Structure formats: structure tokens, C-alpha cells
């Protein structure tokens, strides 16, 4: 696969996902693009236009429940980040956070991370290439790892800031 095709695949999958296209359909659309350009010798952009524009043609209606769930998970994510950041500050400065021990705030923050993680795992269902049956999107392990790295980075930066500003 050329760099053009690999980049287009990544962008197309991301755009289709943002339009809530079903995983089986996403696999079909990506395979059609790759099969077609392999025959014509065109780049994917020449044959199908920018990935975001091509994906927009497959956009389906987003149910209200999905929108509400998205907002709910975002609020939980923000609360999680807030509690973890304040919990770390509290631990370093030996102060309570919103009336609770800093360690408890940190623990509650970490627990609040779980619903967004589960939500992301449900949203990012694996997409298979219909030609080979092989998965073309990151597996659940990669999703968990990338989200955990973000959390660890947030905690690390907060801890450093707390030490520097103490």
C-alpha cells in the first residue's frame, strides 16, 4: 500500500467513524477505494476526492440518545480530568479537595475515567477488510492504551506543575 493510500485509509476511516457509519459499511467503502485505485493507478484523492468530503456522502442521522451519551461522556471526562489534577495538587500540597482527602479525589477521578473508556471502546468497534477479513482499525487494547497514555500524561504534567508551583 502506498503512503497516499495508507493516509487516505486512515483519514477516511476517521471521517466515516465521525459520521457514525456502521463498521461493516466502513470496511466495504475503504476496500472499494483501495481496489479501484489499484486498477486505475490514480491516487485516492484523484478518484474519490478528499476523504472527509467522500465520507460525508455516507453520513447517517445521529440518534438523540447517541448525542446525549456523547455529551454525558464528555462531562464525565472533564470531571475526571479536574479531580485527577486537583487530587495530585492536593497530594503534593497536602490539602483537601472539595472537602475530601486528596487521595479519594484522585481515586474518584480515576473511576470516572472508566465510562468514557467503555464509551470509546463501544464507539470504536473494529472494522474488517471484506477482502481478507483482517482488522484495519486498532483493537480494543490499542484504544485502552492510547486513552491511558493520555491520562498518565495529564497526571505527570499536573504533578510537575504542582511541584514547581509549591
Amino acid at each position, binding site marked *: 500500500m502506498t503512503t497516499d493510500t495508507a493516509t487516505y485509509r486512515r483519514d477516511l476511516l476517521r471521517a466515516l467513524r465521525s459520521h457514525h457509519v456502521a463498521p461493516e459499511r466502513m470496511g*466495504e*467503502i475503504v*476496500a*472499494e*477505494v*483501495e*481496489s*479501484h*485505485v*489499484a*486498477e*486505475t493507478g*490514480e491516487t485516492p484523492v*484523484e*478518484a*474519490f*476526492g478528499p476523504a472527509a468530503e*467522500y465520507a460525508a*456522502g*455516507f453520513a447517517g442521522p445521529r440518534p438523540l440518545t447517541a448525542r446525549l451519551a456523547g455529551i454525558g461522556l464528555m462531562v464525565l471526562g472533564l470531571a475526571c480530568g479536574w479531580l485527577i489534577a486537583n487530587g495530585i495538587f492536593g497530594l503534593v500540597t497536602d490539602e483537601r479537595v472539595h472537602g475530601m482527602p486528596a487521595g479519594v479525589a484522585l481515586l474518584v477521578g480515576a473511576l470516572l475515567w472508566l465510562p468514557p473508556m467503555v464509551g470509546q471502546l463501544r464507539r470504536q468497534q473494529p472494522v474488517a477488510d*471484506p*477482502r*481478507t477479513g483482517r482488522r484495519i482499525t486498532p483493537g480494543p487494547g490499542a484504544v485502552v492504551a492510547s486513552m491511558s497514555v493520555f491520562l498518565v500524561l495529564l497526571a505527570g504534567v499536573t504533578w510537575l506543575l504542582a511541584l514547581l508551583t509549591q
Partner: protein
Amino acid sequence: MPNDTWPSEWLRAVLPLCVLAAVADEETYGYAVAQRLQAGGLGTVKGGTLYPVLNRLEEEGLVTSSWREGAGGPGRKYFAVTTAGAEHLAARAAAWQSFTERAAGLLPSVRSSR
């Protein structure tokens, strides 16, 4: 008029029927359909236009598709017409013929406009 300058609204109207006709002739794949349309004088039909049409035909139950191994390539998606698709094509092709004849009757002929 050169092949590649047909007004886009004309192509939008006739493309589903022409694509269905190409698939009805023989089980075929996207690139071959595009070549067929170009050879027939409709100009270059890009993948970004062609596959959504093929997918819509499949959603409407007029064609079916299946992936097969390509000759050294990554695999091709073949499309075949269904019974409903063949009936739809016959009815619409007749209606299209009648429609274009009537529309042509309303337009000044090429000879009289010179």
C-alpha cells in the same frame, strides 16, 4: 459537444440507469463499469461518483455484490443484476426513451437553429 462536458445534472439523472445497464449486460466490477461508460460517450466517471451509485443500486435490491480474488491484485468487488434490477431496467429504459423523445420534440432541432 466533447464527451467530458455533459452538464452534471444530465449525468446525475442518467447515471444510475446506465450503471445498472452495464451491470445487467454481465457481472462486472467498478473500474470496468467506468470504462464502459467512458467508451459509451458519457466521459470520465470518477470512483467517488460511481461507487455511491452502485451502493444505492445495491441498497434498493437492484444489484448484488461479492468480493473475489483479483489477478495478483487486492481483490475486486463484482456486481450482478437481480431479477428486480432487470425488471426495473427494462421499465425505466422504455420510459427514458419516451421521455427523451418528447423532450427532443420540444427543443429546436440542430438544423433549424443554424
